[in-house]
């Protein structure tokens, strides 16, 4: 009973009279139990396990040996692994920065002068986001291929000499891959921004209009500041997608040519399941997670409300 009283007092302090609702008692835990059990058993426990593996020298069969921080040193200094991490960071430009810009443009156009077809455009723009990335990858493999759509277009505008197998070109493969990310993520950003833009008080727009602000000016000084929260959410989701991308790379380039498109997730998979170096794979996975948490934290810090 003691617990119930404490909770009642605490919640009562935060929200008036909320304590009256607190009749859940111990039965409340029964409602949490299934979620907590599955979450701890299949997410928290494996995460902690991987952390343990990262300190081991283990091939998955023979008894593991203690490796100290050796795997982490390897993950951060081995040129192959370090380059993969660098590639992952570069992908953020195409998965996060460009889509947010494109999403803002889409939003500005959709809430601007358009009267018809708004739903159509929203449905179309969001479409790539719902597809399995594997299928997106197989599609773009062909789009980028020697006789794919990109080269066809270049031929059409008289730039045929620039054509190449884009994903097979060491110089362009990563950018080409990144642009697939832009194609997938822009609609998601648009969707988040649209919802934010609808919450902005219309009287602010009217006031700005009376002050003589045109549509562009209104978007920049009224709508955009109201989207801070949505931009930060979009930033978080797309940054995770960039750093942890696997499906797309696996089917399009598989890391090639010559490691130009290796990303951390791909090497985690390869090390753990092809090369049997579970310690190094785990250490890389841990580094990847830390990177995600740090960047997500940074985005949320930059977007905090009270500044």
């Amino acid at each position, binding site marked *: 009973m003691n617990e119930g009283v404490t909770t009642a007092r605490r919640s009562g302090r935060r929200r008036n009279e909320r304590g009256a609702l607190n009749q859940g008692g111990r039965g409340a835990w029964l409602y949490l139990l299934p979620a*907590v059990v599955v979450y701890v058993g299949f997410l928290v426990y494996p995460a902690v396990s991987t952390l343990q593996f990262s300190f081991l020298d283990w091939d998955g069969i023979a008894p593991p040996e203690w490796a100290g921080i050796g795997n982490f040193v390897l993950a951060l200094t081995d040129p192959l692994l370090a380059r993969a991490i660098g590639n992952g960071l570069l992908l953020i430009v195409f998965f996060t920065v460009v889509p947010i810009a494109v999403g803002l443009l889409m939003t500005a156009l959709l809430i601007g002068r358009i009267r018809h077809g708004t739903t159509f455009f929203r449905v179309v723009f969001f479409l790539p986001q719902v597809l*399995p990335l594997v299928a997106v990858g197989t599609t773009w493999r062909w789009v980028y291929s020697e006789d794919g759509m990109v080269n066809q277009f270049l031929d059409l505008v008289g730039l045929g000499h620039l054509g190449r197998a884009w994903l097979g070109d060491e110089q362009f493969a990563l950018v080409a891959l990144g642009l697939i990310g832009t194609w997938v993520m822009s609609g998601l950003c648009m969707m988040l921004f649209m919802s934010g833009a609808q919450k902005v008080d219309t009287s602010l727009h009217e006031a700005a209009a009376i002050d003589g602000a045109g549509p562009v000016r209104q978007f920049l000084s009224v709508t955009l500041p109201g989207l801070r929260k949505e931009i930060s959410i979009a930033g978080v989701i797309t940054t995770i997608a960039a750093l942890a991308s696997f499906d797309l790379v696996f089917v399009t380039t598989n890391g090639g040519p010559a490691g130009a498109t290796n990303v951390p997730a791909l090497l985690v998979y390869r090390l753990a399941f092809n090369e049997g170096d579970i310690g190094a794979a785990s250490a890389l996975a841990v580094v990847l997670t830390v990177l995600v948490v740090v960047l997500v934290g940074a985005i949320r810090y930059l977007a905090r409300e009270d500044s």
Partner: protein
Amino acid sequence: MRHGTLGTALSYGLLSLMALLVLLPFVGIVLAALHPSGSQVAGVGLPEQWSWENFRLAWEAGGFDDLMRSSLIISGAVVPLTVLFATMAGFALSILRVWGGRYLSLGFVLGLTVPVELLVIALYYNLREVGLTDAYLGVVLAEVALFLPFGVYWMQSHFSGVPRELVEAARMDGARNRTVLWRVLMPISWPAVTTLTVLVFMWSWNQFLLVLVMMQDPSMRTAPTGLGLFVGQYGTDIPLLAAASLIVIAPIVVVYLVFQRSFVNGITRGAVKG
């Protein structure tokens, strides 16, 4: 006035261009899939000879009978379990206010930043010990755990937005937890639940790495995972690969178009309003 018309035309022009950029690859693979199997497909173009054969060939070559069955079994289990567990937990955390609930909420939210890569290694090697690799149960529970952070967050914020008077009134009438959740809250929660259902279905259907690792038996893999390996085998047969891609894409596109309100509006609005 002239300026306004020009601006409108420009807006439509830009939006149409972007829509075209989104849709062109689809048009491309649909047309590619209609070319005769094994033929060269040079960019977007109408096939000289329309061939519907590819879908049957790709279905057989890819073993989509098995893949689709696995996909349906896995999604069919993951979706109801995730939605049910998330609803119950969200209810407990927002309405019942359990002791330590705030820390639990935080614990679930932290799970949102955990990439699958951190989990697959241990999931594989730990579950192998207990025979849960190459088993639907292992994949299902792992996916439920993966989607619960969002699910719990979603349902919790939905229930927090429900007017307090509603629950208070029910309590006055002596309603127990069970009654409050299923009789009072659920009837007004269908929009939030539908959106969650649709999103979890999408994530489960599209999940790749987890299935790739945990299902070594090809016949138990899901459609997208099968496609990932299909590329390796038939990567040069563009019409066949295009057909296989469309087979994998079709179910999710149908769900999207039918439930586009839940995707589009749900993501943005459902959480706050009931």
